[in-house]
């Protein structure tokens, strides 16, 4: 049974796809898109799902939003089974898949919203006011009566969002909500997402943008190749990949002895090397604050060109570390 305080709870969700090719000699390709997902999302919070392309983010979003059945496992949203209680859940959830498709392009944004308002049973007396309200929230009032086919990609994205919140859902699934938006609109969208949470809406958000995940989501999960490789708060995830502090050390090539000395500096929890043409970069993830920059310079006396930069471990670092570790 699901926990009452959870907005989402999944137990061992798997999802397989078979694609068939050929006529006489049928070739079936089997793909395991999700391989046993266990996830818990608290009510009234924003939960971020990060992952590279093809990791299974959209598949999981569709299962949670009742648009796809899991092959195995159970998923509960607002305490209800997504398969058995889809009828109960649908009026209470919003879904924003985004992209160029998913809208009636030959009619206006207002007509699109009217149609879905009717399908969601929004009282007629409230309908127009509610449509005006969501159009204002996504800044589409002026274009509301233009045909959607005349919209830019960003405007379509905003309309997707408007449709998703039109019926005031208790939980909103946002699949890459700021993709295609200009920086100003993306910032406004993030503001809107925060205001929805303030209203008590639970948000399940998938994104590619690490800064967005970091800015919006107190809790995150990283999905890679159909598995959750980590699930925690941003701070704990940083700790998981080695620490809050990162040192980037750059020079024109390091020999093995120098790399070894860097690896064994005090407080280094994770050690990554990258090559950028003639420049080698060593990234040191620091567990503690004890190592100073001048100690790194001292460890590499033969590199007058040496550059050492200290920074906070970014969500992108965390993400790349986790995904690469899973790939290994």
């Amino acid at each position, binding site marked *: 049974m699901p926990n009452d305080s959870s907005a989402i709870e999944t137990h061992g969700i798997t*999802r397989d*796809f078979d694609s068939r090719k050929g006529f006489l000699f049928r070739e079936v390709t089997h793909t395991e898109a999700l391989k046993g997902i266990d996830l818990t999302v608290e009510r009234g919070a924003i939960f971020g799902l990060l992952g590279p392309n093809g990791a299974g983010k959209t*598949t999981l979003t*569709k299962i949670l*939003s*009742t*648009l*796809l*059945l899991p092959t195995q496992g159970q998923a509960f949203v607002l305490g209800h089974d997504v398969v058995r209680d889809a*009828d109960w859940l*649908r*009026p*209470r959830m919003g*879904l924003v*898949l985004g*992209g*160029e*498709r*998913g*809208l*009636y*392009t*030959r*009619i206006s944004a207002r*007509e699109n919203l*009217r*149609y*879905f308002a*009717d*399908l*969601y*049973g*929004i*009282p*007629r007396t409230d309908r127009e006011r509610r449509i005006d*309200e969501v159009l204002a929230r996504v800044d589409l009032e002026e274009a509301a009566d233009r*045909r959607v086919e005349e919209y830019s990609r960003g405007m379509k994205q905003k309309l997707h969002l408007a*449709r998703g*919140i039109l*019926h*005031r*859902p*208790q939980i909103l699934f946002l699949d890459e909500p700021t993709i295609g938006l200009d920086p100003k609109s993306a910032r406004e969208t993030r503001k809107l997402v925060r*205001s*929805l949470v303030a*209203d*008590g*809406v639970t948000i399940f958000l998938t994104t590619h943008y690490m800064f967005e995940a970091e800015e919006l989501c107190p809790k995150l999960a990283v999905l890679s190749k159909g598995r959750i490789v980590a699930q925690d708060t941003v701070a704990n995830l940083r700790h998981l990949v080695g620490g809050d502090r990162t040192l980037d050390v750059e020079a024109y090539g390091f020999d093995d002895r120098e790399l070894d000395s860097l690896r064994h500096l005090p407080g280094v929890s994770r050690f990554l090397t990258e090559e950028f043409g003639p420049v080698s970069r060593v990234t040191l993830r620091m567990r503690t604050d004890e190592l100073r920059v001048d100690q790194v310079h001292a460890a590499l006396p033969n590199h007058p060109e040496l550059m050492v930069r200290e920074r906070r471990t970014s969500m992108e670092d965390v993400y790349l570390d986790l995904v690469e570790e899973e790939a290994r």
Partner: protein
Amino acid sequence: MATATVQYSRARSTYAALRLSVLQFLADPQWLVPSMIAPVVFALVSFELFRGAGPYFLTYAILGAGMMSMWGQTLYGSGWATGMDREFGTLEPTIQAPTPYLYVVVGRVLWNVISGLIGGGIVYVVIVIVAGGPPAVPNPVGFALLFVFVMVTLASVGVIFAAFYVYTRYAGFIQNIGEFAFYIGTGCMFPVVLLPFVTNPVSLAFPPTWGLDALRYLSIPGYQGFGWGFWGDLAGAVATTVVYLSVAGLVFQRVERHVLEEGNLSEY
């Protein structure tokens, strides 16, 4: 913005779908041309071919071509709209909405019935102009009432056909291939009794087959259709239509379950 949970209304959803169909039609009215050209062409071809069919050949031509027009509009049009939902990517949000998709389809079928009737009306006008006068119909009131009922029988099949479009993105293509087979099987242009006896059970599984046979009994004196006559046909039409409409909800439930299992809602 507080969250809210509202209840959908089936009638409102159906009306919304009907309204959307009208809006989409008005946004792109060029579809009027093929949907009107086809029945007119069938009317003129059948008018020419039925010249030797006795004094009621005009009624045969009008019934045949008019029915083909409405057949196409109601059956094909209903499925086509769902096919367009797939192409536009709007099938997913519509299925995700709390209203069962069946009621959206019913709204679209209503629109297709209306446009089918317009097509039938145009066929009538064209034939009357070409033939130089209207056909003799012995019982015009009964004919009109039964005509409307035949539209209902068509709509009942249209709803089930639309489920097929939800089921697979290939439905349109399969329907294209099977279009004439359906016209033959349901006897829209000629009585089904002309077909080999073994095919009759398949024909009788479709409500319009019965409805149209009844319509011919009513409008063509001496018509030789099924041996059970007008009332038998009418009873069969009512019974099969009731069966179709009763199973429609179940069919859509099963189809929706299938597409959610397959995950092919976004394919087009």
